[in-house]
Every structure is written in structure tokens, then in C-alpha cells.
């Protein structure tokens, strides 16, 4: 008896429209649509797409609970055993929407699967809740994505015990599952020690979180002509925290203008960081982001120019993977703007 699957896609793949239709509320269509047709063909008689949920990316990201509820009703209405979302490739909001849809299905005890480019922000946020297959960074990769998704979905539905991410081809979710080995822990420990003594390869059963090293870059030759940029994890944002960066476990960073700002005051700026006593930073944000001193140095010609935009996020409890990703993005933007050096302040 074929498995019944709900497929989630966005407004573009659902043929509703492009960016202009990103606010399209969720709609339920019987049968397959868009990439679902290729999935249906790949599944043959093993599974069928009972219905497709088509929803605009902005709407989904803006109304998470409502869309999750809508998906729950669709799963119940069609008695579906699984939800497959995407593939979203490198589309950021579509990746978040697919992650949300898959998580909603997983939360309701259904098999859930989506697929996107490994760098897509949706991966880090939702990998703990659902399986995610890696895809190319654009729809050109549809050819490999669909068969992989089809096969993996059947594997999940058959309930076979999965091997590691490397063996089965999904993105490692960082979720620990218990298992029973052939040997007791003590034997495994002594065997591992013997290999370590002899310098042989061994596989640790738990990897300690670790940070990578970066080669130091050469110093700035002439500071008086250099453009310096400010970045902070201390959470200094314009008053009112326009991007609503949370006090901990931030999911984004902000880029804010310093045009015409000579000194950070408590009236125009504040801290959003929940990891320390905020009174001092709110009283004088320069204590975290030294704009006043750098402006003086700029006037005195000690430095060439203070880059008019600064980047800020909250470093409190933020996932290492997120921070590394933002570091890359900010570095890229600063390089394109020909900034020569960065002052990174932390609290």
C-alpha cells in the first residue's frame, strides 16, 4: 500500500509567482505540483503525493504557528505518514520555510524530510528537528536532489535504522541517539587507547566542540590612510532594537549606519545583549563600541576613515555555526567595501 506524503513548496515552485507573491497565504492542492511531479515519478507505486501545500516564503516565516497548524490539518486530512519540503537550494527564506514545515510534521510524529544547500540558514536552525539532504546552491541541482529525496524518504518510511550522516548522505544533525554496541564500553575504551598509543586511526564516540584556527593576516601599513570597520558581539543596536535581535541565541546580525554619529548616546543606542548587566552599556554605548574615540582619531588623521556601517549581534548563547557563518558574510561585505582592518569588540 503506497505511502501518503504531503509535499510543501513555495509560491515560486507552486507557479503562483515570484518575489511579488511572497506573501501568498498557505493553500492546499490535491495531488502533486511543481517539483512534486518529478518526486511522484521517482516514487512510482511506492508512495504518492496526496496533496501539496503551497505557501509564500514571507507568509510562512512571518506566521510560523499558523502555517504549522495548516500543515498539521493537511497531514490529518489526508492521513499522510510523511511530509517532504523543497528542495530549497540556497534560497534563504524558502530554506527557513522548508525547515519550519518539516519541523511541524516531525513535531506531529510524522516522518519529515527537506533538502537545501548546506550553507542555507535553514540548516542550522532546523537540523535538530528534521532530516535535511544537501543540494547544489541553485535549481540546476534539481536533477540530483529529487531522486535523493525520493529514495531517502522511502528509507525513513520503511523505518530502517540509519547509519551516520557520512554513510547515508544527509547533513549531520548533531542529535545524539543511543545504541547498543557489540562490546561493553570498557573493552571499547581499552581498544581505543591501544590504537591511540600506537598512533593508529580511531573514531572517538563523542567529539568535543572545538574552534578552528585562522592564519594571521599582515598588519596595516599606513593607518593614517586606512578605513577601519567596527563589529561587535556586545549587542549594541539603535534604540528599540529595530531587527529584534534576541537577548540570547541570536539568529541574525544587524548592519547599522554611523553616518553623522559622533558619539554613541543612551538616547539613540542601546544594548540588546542578555549576558551581562546592561546599565553601563545603556548609559554610554561607547563603553562597548568606541565610536567617540574613533571619530576623534578620524579627525586627527590617526586613521583614514571610520567605515560608516557597523555590524552587531548578540554573542550570548549563539550557535557557533551561526557565528562562523555571519563572520564570513561580514568579512565578505567589508572586503568588497575595501575596508583594511576591523576592530571586533566583545563583552
Amino acid at each position, binding site marked *: 500500500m503506497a505511502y501518503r506524503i504531503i509535499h510543501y513548496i513555495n509560491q515560486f515552485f507552486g507557479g503562483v509567482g515570484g518575489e511579488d507573491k511572497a506573501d501568498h497565504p498557505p493553500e492546499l492542492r490535491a495531488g502533486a505540483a511543481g517539483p512534486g511531479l518529478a518526486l511522484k515519478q521517482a516514487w512510482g507505486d511506492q508512495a504518492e503525493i496526496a496533496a501539496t501545500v503551497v505557501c509564500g516564503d514571507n507568509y510562512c516565516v512571518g506566521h510560523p504557528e499558523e502555517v504549522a497548524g495548516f500543515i498539521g490539518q493537511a497531514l490529518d486530512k489526508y492521513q499522510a505518514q510523511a511530509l517532504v519540503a523543497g528542495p530549497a537550494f540556497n534560497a534563504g527564506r524558502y530554506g527557513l520555510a522548508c525547515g519550519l514545515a518539516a519541523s511541524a510534521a516531525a513535531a506531529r510524529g510524522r516522518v519529515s524530510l527537506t533538502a537545501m544547500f548546506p550553507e542555507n540558514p535553514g540548516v542550522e536552525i532546523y537540523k535538530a528537528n528534521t532530516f535535511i539532504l544537501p543540494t547544489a546552491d541553485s535549481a540546476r541541482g534539481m536533477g540530483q536532489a529529487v531522486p535523493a529525496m525520493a529514495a531517502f524518504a522511502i528509507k525513513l518510511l520503511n523505518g530502517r535504522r540509519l547509519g551516520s550522516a557520512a554513510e547515508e548522505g544527509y547533513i549531520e544533525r548533531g542529535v545524539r541517539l543511543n545504541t547498543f554496541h557489540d562490546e561493553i564500553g570498557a573493552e571499547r575504551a581499552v581498544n581505543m587507547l591501544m590504537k591511540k598509543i600506537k598512533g593508529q586511526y580511531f573514531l572517538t564516540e563523542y567529539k568535543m566542540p572545538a574552534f578552528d584556527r585562522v592564519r*594571521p593576516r599582515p598588519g596595516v601599513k599606513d593607518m593614517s590612510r586606512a578605513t577601519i570597520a567596527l563589529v561587535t558581539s556586545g549587542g549594541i543596536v539603535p534604540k528599540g532594537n529595530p531587527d529584534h535581535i534576541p537577548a540570547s541565541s541570536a539568529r541574525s546580525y544587524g548592519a547599522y549606519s554611523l553616518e553623522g554619529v559622533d558619539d554613541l548616546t543612551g538616547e539613540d543606542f542601546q544594548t540588546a545583549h542578555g549576558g551581562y548587566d546592561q546599565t553601563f552599556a545603556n548609559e554610554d554605548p561607547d563603553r562597548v563600541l568606541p565610536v567617540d574615540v574613533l571619530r576623534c582619531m578620524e579627525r586627527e588623521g590617526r586613521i583614514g576613515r571610520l567605515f560608516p556601517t557597523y555590524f552587531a549581534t548578540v554573542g550570548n548563547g549563539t550557535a557557533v555555526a551561526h557565528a562562523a557563518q555571519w563572520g564570513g558574510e561580514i568579512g565578505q561585505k567589508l572586503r568588497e567595501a575595501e575596508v583594511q582592518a*576591523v576592530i571586533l569588540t566583545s563583552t
Partner: protein
Amino acid sequence: MPVAHMASIVPISKSVGANRIIPTVAIPHPLGNPALPREEEVAVRRQLVEKALMALSADVSDQTVF
């Protein structure tokens, strides 16, 4: 591009891989000490930023605390 990391817990800066580290005053107010009168506090801030510029100008081969 070179980066100067101004933070108050040096071991943490080291463990996350920063190459140019400038120890600061304290966590809630890294670049200022509220206990000081305003001019002195700005002088301390200037001193720390000066050290950051010095670090950014220097060539370093490994993680260095300035």
C-alpha cells in the same frame, strides 16, 4: 584583513582563535570604567583603541595578546 579582538577574558579569545587580542576593562563595560570620571574614562578608552590600532599595524605570526 587583520582583526583586533577587544575582549576581557583572554583565554576565551584565544580558544575561539583570535590572533590579535586586546584585554579590556570588564565584561559589562569593556572599553570604559564607569567608576572613573568621564574624561579619565575616555582617556582609558583612547588608550585601549590606540593599542588596537598598534595591534592592527603589527605583523604577528601567532595568537598575540597586546
